[in-house]
């Protein structure tokens, strides 16, 4: 069976690098992007099983990524992470059909568990 494909979009390199390191350890194929534009072009070429995206980014933000993903692949799950967590952003994300929502710093164990849940649904 081919590996599950996971995309991580965050404008800080450390987040993508750390996520890649820990998720590859679980056997996922991981691609990371520092901003949304190239990530969205990549999505047009290929389907990912889970997209983990930062909420607040320069240019296209996480909500826009969520909408595009859902339009292209309704079954792909999106996990939103943000440093600026408040109730409003959480509600906004949930209305946009987000699979999960984490304030940063994100416990890697919890992110992994969330991805597993996303894939088993």
């Amino acid at each position, binding site marked *: 069976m081919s590996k599950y494909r996971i995309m991580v979009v965050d404008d800080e390199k*450390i*987040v993508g690098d750390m996520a890649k390191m820990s998720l590859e350890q679980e056997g996922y194929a991981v691609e990371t992007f520092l901003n949304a534009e190239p990530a969205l072009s990549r999505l047009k070429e290929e389907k990912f099983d889970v997209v983990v995206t930062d909420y607040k980014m320069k240019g296209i933000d996480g909500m826009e990524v969520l909408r595009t993903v859902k339009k292209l692949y309704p079954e792909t799950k999106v996990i939103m*992470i943000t440093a*600026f967590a408040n109730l409003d952003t959480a509600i906004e994300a949930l209305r946009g059909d987000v699979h999960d929502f984490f304030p*940063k*710093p*994100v416990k890697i*164990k919890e992110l992994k568990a969330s991805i597993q849940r996303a894939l088993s649904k």
Partner: protein
Amino acid sequence: MKDIFGHLRSIFGFLKRQTRGFAGEIDYLSFKTLFTRFRQVLDDHNRAIEVIADMGDKLGGDYLFDINYIKKAYSELSGAVYSSMQNFDVLTKNKYIKLHDVFERIDNQIKRIIYDVPASTGLVIFYDNITWDMPRDVGGKNSNLAEVKNYLKLNVPEGFAITTRAFDEFIKHNGLNEKIESLGNPPISPLGKGETLFNSPLGKGGLRGVMPNELHDLIINGEIPSELSAAIDDAIERLKEKFKGGLACAVRSSATEEDSEHSFAGQFETVLNVPLKGRAVKDAYKRVIASLFSDRAIAYQRQMGYEPGRSKMAVGCMAMVDSASSGVIYSTNPNGDGNTMIINSTWGLGKSIVEGQIDADFYVVKKDINPEIIENRHGRKESMIINLRDGGVNKIKTPDSMMGRPCLTSEQVLELASRAIQIEKHFRKPQDIEWAIDKDGRIFILQARPLPPFNSPLGKGGDGGCEREAREFSNATILMKDRGLVVQKGVGAGRVFILRHMDELDRIPKGSVLVAKHDSSNFVRVMPYVSAIITDTGTPTSHMASLCREFRIPTIVNAGNATQALKHGQEITVNADDGGAAVFEGTVKTLLMHADSNFRRMEDVYEFRRKRYILRYIAPLNLIDPLEDNFTPEGCKTIHDILRFIHEKSVSELIGISRAVSKEHAHVKLDLKIPAGITVIDIGGGLNIKPGQRSAAFEDIASIPLKAIIKGMLYPGVWHSDMVSLKAKDFLTSMMRMSDITSDGLSYIENNVAVASKEYMNLSLRFGYHFNVIDCYCSENARNNHIHFRFAGGATDIVKRSRRVELITNILKGYGFNIKTKGDLIIARLANIRQDEMENILDQLGRLIAYTRQLDAVLHDDGAVERYSRNFLKENYGL
């Protein structure tokens, strides 16, 4: 007689010192204000320590974090430190104003990481000042060595780096830029089939635009720019000061790519035993930087895929070790199973080994908790290299008496092995380490660089591994589970060492699991050597806890009765993770193999390492012991040090201020069943009495610490009102020391004062000839809590007095006090203790004070110390 007066003087001197800085009395109201400042210092301290603990956790490899987290956390931390310093300044009347400069310096370092400001190095930089972000400035070799020196704190010769900026200046000054650029494009492809470095056109020269060795020669004959020349002269002078007595240095290459992915071993020049004189060092400097452009080095760089014109050469100048023996360690044996290392050694300088001496000594050492020599071969060592008196080195025939004799003792081999394990653990890769042992037996690390990768048998485990692991895991007998708080996650195995007294710390065998009743920052001394720590009491935010996180020692605190449940010498495995703590019987190898793997993997992520580096300026604690010389503002290297300094000095300051509080204000006599004659100055919530009431009963005491200590003093049987009979000599001594020997029947009016609030107490007691100061903060927050106990004086001769010192020290040690004694002065400190335990200890202290009031009069022999200690602990208080 003179001695007796001298002694009296010293006692009064001791008391006088307590009030230093507050000459005369201070009024009640200003004391209340100062006390408020003290409490603010405590609050800020707590807030800051919590942030440090959180940062340690979030930056520990288990969380995805970004710079926003670091910014937010640091802004909270620096805010707390700043506020703490403001209050501290008021409390100490600006006595430690230098602390602001220290904070600013550390703050700048941290902000450089947060805001990605590149380091600005000069032409020359000493190893002490080289930091994480300087490999491009000082080269790989210097950078690694500085790390070994500054972070691992291993012995590295004093020295300085001449930076790549100096190299640029030199090249520019001599107009060599163009020639160097012309090296950029190789005229031919890398080595063809059958070609080696030395028979290919590459190795034979043939560089477009530059004649063979031309650049090399131009550099040798080049001129050192005057600014660089002056910087080197200055550094030489400073090195001479640091390295007392030494007159020579080794000048080594440290190219920007060297010792990183590719070792460049032996490609560049090293000049040994260079006299510490401007001219000699500069000539050696030119020889080393010129070696970057030797044909051989250029060929090597091309073969490894580097563009020769782009490499830069920094240089290291380090004090020359007068080696008795030296050699090389491969921290992982390339031909082994990953669990062994090899050590080569020879007489004199290690140059011969690096150059391939074949008859050196050879050891294979098992990399274990306690390393073990599993193979040794002692070579003839026909020749050796020695330093010449006027500079340079020479190969000589080894004297007959040394030829064939091993040049290391087994202890030295094992010591070297432990250091190699430490270095490998730190750099996370097998290391090629050069070392030397000088004629005084001191080990120096001269170089540490990664070994080229080889197929490690580690990490080969197939899928069957998990199942096996689960089976082995489930078979292990659980000794303790779900008890205590995890301070540092991880797995550690070893034999239990139950620490009863702090004196035993030096006797802990390496690799032990340290089990103690209380936590203590003094454990830092053994942290590099123990495999785990468990304490019965303690909090995850204590100083010790931060140290355990720094050293990544699996640690569990507040485990209840570990000192009872575990047996001294028993082999155990400690597993501390998210799910809590568990202790297994024996060594559970599978657990150990996976220990810390998440962190180790993350450490391979450059960005993670880089951001995590910030913790080095925040979390480590260098100011361990307040009685050591480095306990100064200048000794503070991290934010944690600053906090520790402020906290400790605030407490000392408060003791001084409390003693100076005027007794005229709001004092109330304690009306107790014993004639202790204690007057209380209530600074808020200390007593529960009506306004204007001038005396208070035991029940009226609201101050938690005062109540606890008085409770102890009132314990049935501890206060002996009968005068103990003094022998004739004691009597005479005491008559000369004090006028009123019979005062015990009376109250000690005016002698005994307690300054108290709900949570604070400063109690000064004078019973006849004994002076006692107990300063204590006792609240719900364990981190705020401290007891400082000082004791001096006695009526009898010095032998009996020292017996009492021994007795009190014995008992205090049992409660985990950190103790210093000087003559018959005892200074004992204890901190970070839970309130219920504090109250218990204070109760015991109360009993101890009452019990030992006259005890020295009956301590006729050394056996009595033991006897009375035992009696005290058994609550048998008869004299």
